[in-house]
């Protein structure tokens, strides 16, 4: 008797289970994405591959080479060399080793100049380790061209600054020379 009732209970539960499965089979849209052909709808906040924003108005990358991001990084992903000095500074080289990156967002939060961003690009797989080592021409928005333009902007600004300094020094020298002449006369 218990065997029969157990069998009946099992049968009912199979029917219940099958009805749920059937509802899911016919009554629902497929949730599976055929990935390489269908692209996922990625959130704009997605933490993907990095880029260094290029400022069109200023004609340069936002980065000033302050190394705050490199200091904030827990795994030492970022290395950079500075270019220029003072107000007119940017980076010569800026390398990120994404093979070590945790995509933790700490570098972006550390940056006071809004100079490093994450894109929605996420495909990092490669057969060569070198591919995940991103140099500045890969990272800069606008590529090598943007880096070159930044270099020119910085150099021009530095020259201008040097010229202005020289002119100011000359003017100062002239100004300090004149009063002595004045007293002499």
């Amino acid at each position, binding site marked *: 008797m218990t065997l029969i009732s*157990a069998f009946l*209970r*099992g049968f009912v*539960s199979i029917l*219940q*289970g099958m009805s*749920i*499965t059937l509802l*899911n089979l016919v009554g629902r849209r497929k*949730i599976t994405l055929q990935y390489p052909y269908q692209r996922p709808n*990625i*959130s704009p*906040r*997605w*933490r993907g591959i990095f880029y260094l924003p290029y400022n069109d108005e200023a004609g340069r990358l936002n980065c000033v080479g302050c190394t705050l991001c490199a200091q*904030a*990084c*827990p795994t030492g992903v970022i290395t950079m060399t500075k270019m220029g000095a003072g107000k007119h500074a940017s980076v010569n080289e800026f390398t990120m080793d994404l093979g070590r990156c*945790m*995509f*933790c*967002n*700490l570098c972006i*939060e550390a940056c006071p100049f809004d100079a490093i961003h*994450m894109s929605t690009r996420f495909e990092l797989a490669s057969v060569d380790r070198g591919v995940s080592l991103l140099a500045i021409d890969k990272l800069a928005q606008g590529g090598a061209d943007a880096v070159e333009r930044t270099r020119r902007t910085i150099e021009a600004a530095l020259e201008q600054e040097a010229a202005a300094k020289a002119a100011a020094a000359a003017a100062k020298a002239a100004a300090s020379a004149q009063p002595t002449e004045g007293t002499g006369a």
Partner: protein
Amino acid sequence: MTAMQPAVGASTSSDMTINLGPQHPSTHGVLRLMVALDGEYVKSCRPVIGYLHRGLERMMASRPYRQSVPFTDRLDYCASLNSNLAISQAIERIGGMAVPERAQCLRVMLCEMNRIASHLIFFGTYAADIGATTAFLYAFRERERLLDLLEAYTGARLTYNWIRPGGVASDMPEGYAAAVCTFLDGFLKELDAYDTLLTGNPIFRVRTEGVGIISPEKAIAYGASGPVLRGSGVNIDLRRTEPYDAYPQMQFDVPVRTEGDCLARYLVRVEEMRQSARIIRQCLREMPEGEHWGKQPKVFRPAAGEAYSRTESPRGELSIYLVSDGTANPVRVRVRGPSFVHLSMLPELVRGVKVADMIAILGSLDTVLGEVDR
């Protein structure tokens, strides 16, 4: 064979030693169980751990405090926001930081969403361990929706690193509350269907009822926590007994079962998903206005001392102990993970049971090896 000494009874020629894992679908990670079998029965079992050891405690101790948060993502990777919360609380306590009210509420919401995601993994993989593939696929479908929501908030799908010392890294995106509510409505309906599909299934019940019974005394003696402890009839939930963040304001029930078997632990987790949904709704309804991030010192060098934070992760009590000597890096970071404690109960629980029951018991403990090995 020499390394394996069965704990009870003398080894006879009919015994067989097998290795379950390190790569086995039911070990949920890289866990190796050295099992001595007498026919279909388990004579003894010895878990071999450490395959996933990365030295996370030392790595955290050799970096400035705030850089240790992303490493906690790798502890319990099924619920990394809960691990973020544990270390953030410890750092806040050692540095005396205040957390704004809105940030507290956002934290609770994120943690409960992660709790549902984590319990859905348990639900799915436990069903798969026992042999029900359909429930596994359904659970992962719902989890996918939840991960999409977490992705919209944090930008990551597994290692979020979004709860930080002093608050939460960002506020909610626009229209987020409505999206979460829509998900919860659908999710609760799905959960009822899962109950019919799996909880009511006689085969599932036979496989779990009365299997792997943990008495309340034994659970306490081992230091069990979370659903394993509450499945044994001990009503301790740190969200209730030592509430932190916005939990004191939240109305929720703590599910407790007295049976102490695999089914009890399973039912506690399923009911917890419903309660988590309730908490998330309350958070969204009563979200205070204000900042999501408190004021923070630019250079963080807490005074010499120590701090201990206890949190209720989906697996149980996750605690972090920090020692500071006044420099920028902690001297010691110690993680007390629930999975390690629960795994240590396994040899005693599986002695004398059948192999298939051992899988059911291991699954019901819901261990995550990232947290066991650290």
